[in-house]
């Protein structure tokens, strides 16, 4: 079990262009499940691959367990990685897939069987040992990949979007299995994904990346309730946070905080006239889209997310409100979060 640290880690693919990863500083905690979250091209996979040793950094340092590992090959770093496609060796049986790292690291032969049985029982794949990868289902392949990773008892696990190749139904159960696995084994894990739901569900902490730069590092609650900038604010949460420019600032509030005025019990609240243009009934909730009417906010498009209880008609204007404590303010130029200021809405 070890702590992964990077100091000013940078990767530039083409000289003169902006780097894929720019001066990233991070420090994991022992045993935590840290998620790299970001859209494609944000550098999260490149960052992971540099930690693994599959790409060499242009600048900066990588430390594992306190030791600088920049010059070490992947095998010397004592890390294990699960790829998006699982990368199981197609010509070997499950048993031979799992035993392969032991052979490669010259672990004494008499220990092989024992270790493979330990890893496979941990993941419940004991019955599959003689099968070949092409005979396995997606979920089973994930378990084999994990077994192969854990059999070496690495100090860090790296997972590169392992759930993206599974179909939606399978994804949920596979996700649960991963969470259970982490709880049981407790190894420091870094998990890369573009799916913010996965990140929120699984991570102890989430590192939000965009264009190679860390936007925020915090617990799910922190990145959701206290986003550091507009990118984090809109990337997490679906539908995304409503943002509007006013008085030289950007003001935002989440769709679930934009409710019918009489339902907002707080006294410190801001009221709006909301003209509904579209109603989506999703069974458990409504998604309303429409425009604000009157005052400084006239004409701004807003999305609301409400539980059942009211009915809405297209074209009608209703009284909506947001509690003041749910308002977030961002600087217009830097897009970073600033302390709330009092100012007039009307």
């Amino acid at each position, binding site marked *: 079990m070890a702590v992964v640290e990077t100091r000013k880690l940078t990767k530039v693919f083409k000289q003169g262009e902006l780097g894929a990863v720019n001066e990233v500083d991070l420090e994991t905690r022992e045993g935590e499940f840290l998620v790299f979250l970001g859209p494609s091209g944000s550098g999260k996979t490149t960052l992971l691959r540099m930690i*693994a*040793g*599959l790409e060499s950094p242009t600048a900066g340092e990588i430390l594992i367990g306190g030791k600088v590992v920049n010059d070490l*090959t*992947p*095998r010397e770093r004592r*890390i*294990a*990685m699960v*790829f*998006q*496609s699982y*990368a*199981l*060796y*197609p*010509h070997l049986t499950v048993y031979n897939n799992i035993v*392969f*790292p032991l052979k*490669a*690291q010259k672990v004494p032969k008499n220990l092989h069987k024992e270790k493979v049985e330990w890893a496979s029982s941990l993941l419940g794949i004991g019955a599959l040992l003689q099968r070949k*990868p*092409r005979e396995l289902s997606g979920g089973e392949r994930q378990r084999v990949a994990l077994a*192969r990773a854990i059999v*070496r008892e690495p100090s860090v696990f790296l997972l590169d979007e392992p759930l993206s190749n599974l179909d939606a139904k399978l994804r949920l159960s596979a996700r649960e299995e991963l969470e259970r696995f982490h709880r049981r084994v407790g190894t420091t894990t870094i998990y890369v994904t573009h799916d913010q739901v996965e990140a929120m569900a699984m991570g102890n902490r989430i590192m939000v990346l965009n264009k190679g730069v860390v936007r925020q590092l915090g617990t799910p609650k922190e990145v959701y309730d206290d986003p550091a900038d507009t990118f984090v604010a809109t990337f997490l949460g679906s539908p995304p946070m409503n943002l509007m420019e006013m008085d030289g600032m950007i003001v935002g509030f989440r769709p679930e905080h934009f409710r019918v005025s009489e339902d907002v019990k707080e006294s410190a609240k801001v009221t709006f006239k909301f003209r509904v243009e579209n109603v989506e009934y999703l069974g458990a909730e409504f998604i309303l889209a429409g425009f604000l009417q009157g005052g400084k906010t006239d004409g701004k498009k807003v999305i609301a997310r409400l539980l059942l209880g009211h009915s809405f008609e297209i074209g009608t204007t209703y009284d909506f409100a947001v509690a003041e404590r749910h308002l977030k303010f961002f600087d217009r130029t830097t897009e970073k979060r600033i302390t709330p200021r009092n100012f007039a809405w009307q």
Partner: protein
Amino acid sequence: MAVGPVAKPGKTKFKSAGAARSPLLGIAMFSPAVLYIVLLIGLPFLLAIFYAFSDARIGTEMDLAHFWRHLVGLDNFRSILQSPSFRAALKNSIIFTVAAQVIVMVCANILSIALEKPFRGRGLVRFLILLPWVAPVSLGTIGWKWILDSIYSVITWALVTLGFVNKYSPPMWLGQEGLAITSVILVHCWRLIPFSTVILLAGRSAIPKEIPEAASIDGAGFWRTLFQINLPIMTPILGVAILFGTIFTFTDLAVVNLLTNGGPYDSTQTLPNLAFNQGIQGSDLAAGAAISVFLVPVLVVIAYFMLRVANRAEVV
């Protein structure tokens, strides 16, 4: 939502691809080709076997209406099996093919590893490396005939200049038994290495990039990854390369015919060349056919392995 009227197709005779096979059209379309193949490959094949059991000669008329009158049983086979030329040809055909394949596989693997990752000028290097294969076989062989000439050989000149060889007794590359065999094998390798390299390159690039990466993370070095991961995954492709290479060497006429014509003293004689010498130049069609019939068993074995390979693809 307005829905327009359903259009009635002009020709109600059409069938959708899912529902129907149009068997008549299909048969009409492939019968010319099948007919041609039957007439120009199937029939001659049977004819070759017939000739092997007959007394066919160039110049004598064959009365095909009463073809059984021409049958001579196993006489042809008896006489060729007793001929030392034939025994030499059979032995050489096998030795040349096996030796060439071994050398080619090793070299093609090395070359395909070197060519795998893109680099500047790779196109030009590929073009140069491919020249032996893409140039017509007879012309490349003629080039080698000059390079291996007893007197004017380029290689001899280089060796003489370096002081290895006495210039008054240069090696007879195509005239001495051992050297001639080596020369023929080398020319075959020279032709086949480009072909096999390109096939292996295609196979290498079909391995998903994450597999060698996983191997590297698992702790495997260059050699372990090559022999325990990459090559086993490439087995079908290796099979294809070996099988085609074997056919090209085993059934080749041009290289042997032009370099040595079987000499010296049948030391480089091969089945196809012997069949040509006796069958066409010697006018003994029956003997020629009997000799070339010995190609068939090997081809059958190859065909069997081809089919096996085509059914085993292991890229998961």
